[in-house]
């Protein structure tokens, strides 16, 4: 697929999301957590962009900033060419119809006092009452849509009057997916949708997500920390570390030619469920932990843990540089 002649559906440019750290009696600001620090990427219609990284690297914050659940500190998010960071409440409401989310924890993301029916119908009712649907829905329409959605995500429609606690984790995640689909969105932001699930259930949900993508022409922004899951579902993959994108490329390219030392280490640390390969391969074991994101870096933020660091990296921040078509890396190794 060539990127030039397609319009991106979602464009993120120089997005920053800082959270102030306050301390003392007057809550004086003493610093910032740089959760997302100047990231830019595009998402094209019909593709799945996977974001992978360790905990605390800012994956979830990125998604929440895009959905405007946080007001970004600076930077822009364009959805279908419109800047949604500057959008009015009404415009944002319209945009949210096309941008839906699936959350990580299927236990916390559903209201325990609502029935499955009212959970899935809620977005429909909200938009219907504000006359923002293409055509006015009757109660019967809503009912039919709820039943259709439940069946589409693989749940029995007879369960619609039940409460979330009556379902297992996998079933709840299906309810969350049905809710996200209710308004026929164009893009779904999926924040670790399978990481709380068992292996066999995880496979069911991943298959469901790919089926839905084909059927409704959906675009996904898919977050996970499991590299195999990301590889399976994504068209392109972005690797994040300490709020920055270290490498972004086509999924096949990234896994075949990881170029950033961090990507290399991440891939080599991921266990492979095959004892013959697993025992033979040489691991790159990184030392130390992910540092706290409250520090400002003068150079590469991976410097402390990097096995291939050079003196130059300490005081110069690398920028994302294209090393092959569509393959961009932020590392001084690839800049002369």
């Amino acid at each position: 697929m060539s990127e030039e002649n397609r319009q991106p559906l979602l464009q993120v440019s120089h997005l920053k999301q800082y959270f102030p750290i306050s301390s003392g009696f007057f809550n004086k600001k003493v610093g910032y957590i740089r959760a997302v620090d100047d990231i830019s990427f595009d998402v094209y219609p019909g593709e799945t962009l996977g974001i992978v990284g360790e905990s605390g690297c800012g994956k979830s914050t990125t998604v929440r900033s895009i959905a405007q659940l946080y007001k970004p500190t600076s930077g822009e998010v364009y959805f279908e060419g419109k800047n949604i960071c500057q959008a009015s409440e009404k415009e944002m409401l319209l945009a949210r119809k096309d941008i839906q989310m699936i959350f990580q924890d299927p236990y916390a993301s559903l209201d325990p006092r609502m029935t499955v029916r009212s959970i899935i119908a809620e977005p429909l009712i909200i938009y219907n009452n504000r006359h923002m649907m293409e055509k006015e829905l009757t109660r019967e329409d809503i009912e039919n849509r709820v039943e259709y959605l439940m069946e589409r995500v693989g749940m029995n429609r007879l369960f619609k009057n039940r409460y979330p606690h009556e379902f297992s984790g996998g079933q709840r995640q299906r309810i969350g997916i049905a809710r996200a689909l209710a308004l026929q969105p164009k893009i779904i932001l999926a924040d670790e949708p399978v990481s709380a699930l068992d292996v066999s259930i995880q496979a069911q949900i991943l298959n469901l997500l790919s089926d839905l993508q084909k059927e409704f022409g959906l675009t996904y922004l898919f977050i996970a920390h499991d590299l195999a899951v990301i590889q399976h579902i994504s068209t392109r993959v972005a690797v994040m570390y300490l709020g920055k994108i270290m490498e972004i490329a086509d999924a096949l390219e990234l896994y075949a030619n990881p170029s950033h030392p961090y990507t290399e280490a991440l891939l080599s640390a991921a266990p492979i469920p095959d004892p013959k390969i697993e025992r033979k391969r040489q691991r790159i074991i990184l030392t130390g932990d992910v540092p706290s994101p409250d520090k400002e870096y003068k150079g590469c933020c991976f410097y402390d843990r990097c096995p291939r660091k050079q003196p130059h990296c300490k005081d110069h921040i690398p920028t994302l540089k294209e090393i092959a078509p569509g393959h961009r890396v932020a590392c001084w190794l690839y800049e002369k």
Partner: protein
Amino acid sequence: MLKPNAKTVLQVKGLQTYFKTDAGILKAVDGVSFDLHENEALGLVGESGSGKSVTNLSIMRLVQTPPGKIVGGEIYFEDQDILKLPESELRNIRGNKVSMIFQDPMTSLNPFLRISTQMVETIMLHEKGITKQDALARSIDMLKQVGIPAAEKRIFCYPHQFSGGMRQRVMIAMALSCKAEVLIADEPTTALDVTIQAQILELIEKLSNELGTAVILITHDLGVVAGMCDRVCVMYAGKIVEKALTDELFSHPAHPYTEGLIASVPHMDASSKAKRLFSIEGQPPNVIDLKPCCPFYPRCHKCQEICHVAYPPAKQLDAEHTVSCWLYATDDEKKQAIEEEKRK
């Protein structure tokens, strides 16, 4: 690594741990048997609720009673049945001979006490006559071994000053500080990131090789099992459905559940990308009031009539490979089982 004729250090025979609930008896562990040899790493794999953790809590006799109760079986450690020992003697085994690493490094350390207090307390409890200074020196030494930088200073920190990976290292240091013969690691890396997971697994492997500790590794991650374990037991609904050497299990899974489990994990290679994942349909069963049948039959794609009627006996495929599935039973055995069920 596993040597032939290795000494058996721990033997579990027909362990049954039930929980009394309002809805009925929950058979969390129902007839689990396995041996653990010297220097060996044994993997226990299964989905949540399959009874992996309860099996190991039973070995340490840490199951909360009530509601839980070990209702049957034997656990032999050094020719003693742990289940018959009085509490006072059990304390010599717990921590000293068999120690445990828990899943959640955030909650398994006491947040009010310094790391030093917690480590010294452990060592002094288990080793009679050791002075406080010696215990502290030993603790610092252990922290160094697990790779905590500036251990002399960091030992006086509180748990909240450590990151998740470092807390898990402290747990490992504590578990190994008494030179236990058996280490039970209950999902030691589930709460950690991949790069930290790689560090911790390497550490467990290195230390167990150096100290000759046998390890029981509980996990749901088949990748971790593939890299770490010599033998694997696959658990489903409180029972071990398949037991085999790791290579054998991955190359020739015999039970349809194992087969499905291995096939449903996405692989990191280009060939598996376009394909649909194999998925085991349905949900894991509710283990309350299970009928005497194969608990996997509603999800099994090789299910036969007999699977609805009786639980399959364990069948030895070769010296190290056992499976509980009717696919491998002879017709006579099936007939016999059906007749027996009818008589009941």
